[in-house]
């Protein structure tokens, strides 16, 4: 199973919805597409919705960390939402949620970043 990505712009927020499996094979393609979206759209904050992500390994952590650093450097925020227990184990192990905010769902994430629903 491969990775499917949807990018949606809501006001000044880039919403990234990931579906399927994120490994090294998918990581470079995701990074390029994601960086392109950030460059093409006048957005600051990023919400990553992992509801339909069924698998992720350390290559995925690398991509998340890379985007977090870019978003943070531009003075904006990155929020992760709707994570499954399987994928969460990896994030917990890596200590990612010490630096990136995690919320229950997309609605909360949008509210947190000040986007009206």
């Amino acid at each position: 199973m491969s990775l499917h990505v949807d990018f949606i712009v809501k006001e000044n927020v880039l919403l990234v919805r990931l579906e399927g499996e994120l490994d090294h094979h998918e990581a470079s393609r995701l990074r390029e597409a994601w960086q392109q979206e950030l460059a093409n759209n006048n957005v600051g904050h990023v919400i990553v919705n992992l509801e339909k992500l069924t698998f992720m390994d350390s290559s995925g952590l690398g991509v998340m960390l890379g985007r977090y650093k870019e978003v943070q450097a531009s003075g904006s925020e990155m929020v992760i939402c709707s994570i499954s227990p399987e994928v969460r184990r990896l994030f917990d192990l890596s200590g990612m949620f010490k630096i990136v905010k995690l919320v229950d769902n997309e609605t909360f994430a949008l509210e947190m970043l000040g986007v009206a629903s």
Partner: protein
Amino acid sequence: MRNEMTIEFLSVSENESLARVAVASFVSQINPTMEELTDIKTVVSEAVTNAIIHGYQEKVDQKVRLMCSIDGGEIEITIQDEGEGIEDVEMAREPLYTSKPEWERSGMGFTIMENFMDHVEITSGPGEGTTIHMKKQLTSTKALCN
């Protein structure tokens, strides 16, 4: 019951998912929990990715060998490449260490293997390739063995 399998595939990144699916479907014979299955898929993905990007430096015409055996509730997985090998295994095992920071690697591969498996052994040397041997006892069968 004892059972084992060996598969060999080219060092192309498409085969990372093949390796995960093959091992997951093989170990399903002994009914792992969902969490155990995710752990096993993750460590296979880490080790095969290491072989492809570090062992073979993304050369796509090399061979990666994967062996998996089950014996009672114990799973053993061996992933082997004949690539450039690791100069300093202890350093490679350090959390967050990566030899390729410019590739956006997290440096968490071996840390994940050590956390998700009971035992991880790395045999490697410059020019000698790398063999990663891992073991895990399934929780459902642990009580019976104690």
